[in-house]
């Protein structure tokens, strides 16, 4: 768990924006509005670490992942991977970059081609990138299958012959085929049952140690994210509202949204669950077409005051330079400790 700040970041995301146009009209296709899916997001990922990305559906975490992997074109901003800005590279020159940056997708049922054999699925990236002759590729595929805990005899089977957990292992093997440096895993275990989920998480953990991988791990399950991550970024409505070392985030959340998110996770301990305070957020996440002015969380925030609807809070450090949050009324440690009555809100 390296938290040292020096050393070059493997990935630097700078002011990335991704807006999706909403068009109306049949012929003219006027743009009438924009979905602000990702709105000015910056962060970095250090070599060897796991950055967890959490948030609710629609907060832009998957869009962000796809922007980083250049599966979407950015509206603006830049993505610097391994010292190189890849946000404007043309397709052809993107190919060698993709070798170092792979994705694992959420749905192991939809992300594997049902008409291809497992061997073909895993060897496709090797063939596309011309990694050796047929014999070498065959050996590679067998090695990869073993690496993810499947039997090499399975090369000739089709995806439907596997369970969800095994399919996700195939997805992981495919992502690792080209020895990537960075793996972006978008909800890799959300579709799996609890007992299988733990197996896949442990596998990802082992592979990270073995192959010194760097992960961006996207999930909405805060327990899972805490388990795998060194640092965690919390997203709300297209923005990062807090980034912090994992344990620190759970112990001293600074942003009221993080606090509410943590309190909403049901805890499998009856007594504890009866005792603890449940912060129930009112209402739904607002539409990203017209996000609220100022702090985007203010309509649902129990600490909100005037300033929150007027000014957008910047991401600033709290306590340590590694723990940043964007809030006008950050939860101080004392308030977090005394969390209870809707605290009287002092102006920042």
């Amino acid at each position: 768990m390296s938290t040292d700040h020096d050393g070059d970041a493997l990935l630097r995301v700078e002011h990335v924006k991704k807006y999706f146009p909403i068009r109306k009209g049949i012929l003219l296709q006027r743009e009438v509005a924009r979905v602000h899916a990702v709105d000015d997001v910056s962060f970095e990922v250090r070599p060897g670490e796991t950055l967890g990305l959490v948030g609710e559906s629609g907060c832009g975490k998957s869009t962000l992942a796809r922007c980083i992997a250049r599966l979407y074109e950015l509206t603006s901003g830049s993505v610097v991977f391994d010292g190189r800005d890849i946000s404007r590279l043309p397709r052809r020159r993107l190919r060698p970059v993709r070798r170092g940056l792979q994705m694992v997708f959420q749905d192991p049922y939809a992300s594997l081609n049902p008409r291809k054999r497992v061997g073909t699925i895993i060897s496709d990236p090797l063939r596309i990138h011309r990694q050796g002759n047929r014999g070498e590729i065959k050996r590679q595929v067998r090695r990869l299958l073993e690496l993810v805990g499947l039997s090499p005899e399975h090369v000739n089977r089709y995806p439907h012959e596997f369970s969800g957990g095994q399919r996700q292992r195939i997805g992981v093997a495919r992502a690792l085929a080209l020895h990537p440096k960075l793996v972006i895993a978008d909800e890799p275990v959300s579709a799996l049952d609890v007992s299988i989920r733990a197996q896949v998480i442990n596998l990802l953990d082992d592979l990270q140690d073995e192959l010194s991988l760097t992960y961006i791990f996207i999930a909405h399950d805060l327990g899972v994210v805490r388990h795998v991550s060194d640092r965690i970024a919390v997203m709300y409505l297209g923005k990062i509202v807090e980034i912090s070392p994992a344990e620190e985030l759970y112990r001293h959340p600074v942003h009221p949204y993080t606090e509410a998110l943590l309190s909403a996770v049901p805890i499998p301990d009856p007594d504890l669950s009866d005792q603890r305070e449940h912060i129930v957020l009112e209402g739904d996440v607002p539409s990203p077409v017209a996000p609220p002015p100022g702090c985007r969380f203010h309509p649902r925030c129990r600490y909100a005051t005037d300033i929150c609807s007027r000014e957008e809070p910047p991401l600033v450090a709290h306590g340590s330079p590694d723990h940043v949050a964007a809030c006008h009324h950050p939860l101080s440690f004392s308030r977090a400790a005394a969390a209870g009555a809707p605290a009287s809100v002092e102006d920042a």
Partner: protein
Amino acid sequence: MMTDPLLEVRNLKVSFRTEDGTVQAVDGVSLTLAEGETLGIVGESGSGKSVTMMSVMRLITDPNARFEGEVLYKGRDLMALTQDQIRGIRGAGIAMIFQDPMTSLNPVYRVGWQITEQIRAHESISSQAARARAIDLLKSVGIPHASERVDDYPHQFSGGMRQRVMIAMALSCNPDIIIADEPTTALDVTIQAQILSLIRKLRDDFGTAVVLITHDMGVVAEMADRVAVMYAGRIVEQGSRRDVFYQPQHPYTWGLLGSIARLDRPKPERLATIPGLPPSLLNLASGCAFRARCAHRFERCLETPALLDRLGNGHLDACHLEPQAKKDARAEAAPPELVEDAP
């Protein structure tokens, strides 16, 4: 519990004939539900928890399904009722909330219409009165501007709001029992918290008994009075919430609890896992269905274990191990190396 339970399931078996053979989806499940009680049923996909409750509601119409056993609701055997008779109980006596609020509402009817339809099916009441009641119901489940929203279509509601509409619909005829099948699985955590607190409030206000089907041990810990754990079509453990969480007796329950990445504990180096996969329910051999994945199996596991009160306190489990042996095994396996709080 001396009085008759509100709902009693006796030795329910549900099997499906398929091309490959018979799938025994539910294999001898017995349950009771008292008035006002919340029973949590947990298990992974395919464990038979939904099929059990769908069978109670007689919602499985597959011609290849075979049912055995009894389901007593207020002394009547639901399995023996005609379709007309069961229709009188569905909605009015026992209501159901489904997992996916996106697909369980009809997209071409206004939500108000969908609620009043049910009220008018069970009671002779004017359409104005039914509409007024629909508005009240929408208010009681926390839908803002209920008198306007009643004329909206399902697609005009968010996922959480749709689930509220489903709950309003379930409550419309004051049922004694609500069966909620993964009511929050499709929702985000903060919305899940809203819906769970709503269900809790309504349960307390109306005294409705709730059967909560879920795969999330956290949700059960928060909501249930009693818990039943299902595996491969059988109940493997059943007891009060505190008993099941603090003194789990079945190795499968240990595994389930161990494999959760928990926020309330220091982070373990590795998550405990249950090796292997759940068994196929196709031509399942006799014996304990969990034995292939169990670290504590021994010769007796080839006999099918019965769900018995081995501790003498109403806490049932289906494991051949002696209570003392379980205690020792659990102490041994207990906390894997914990990582000290790394700053």
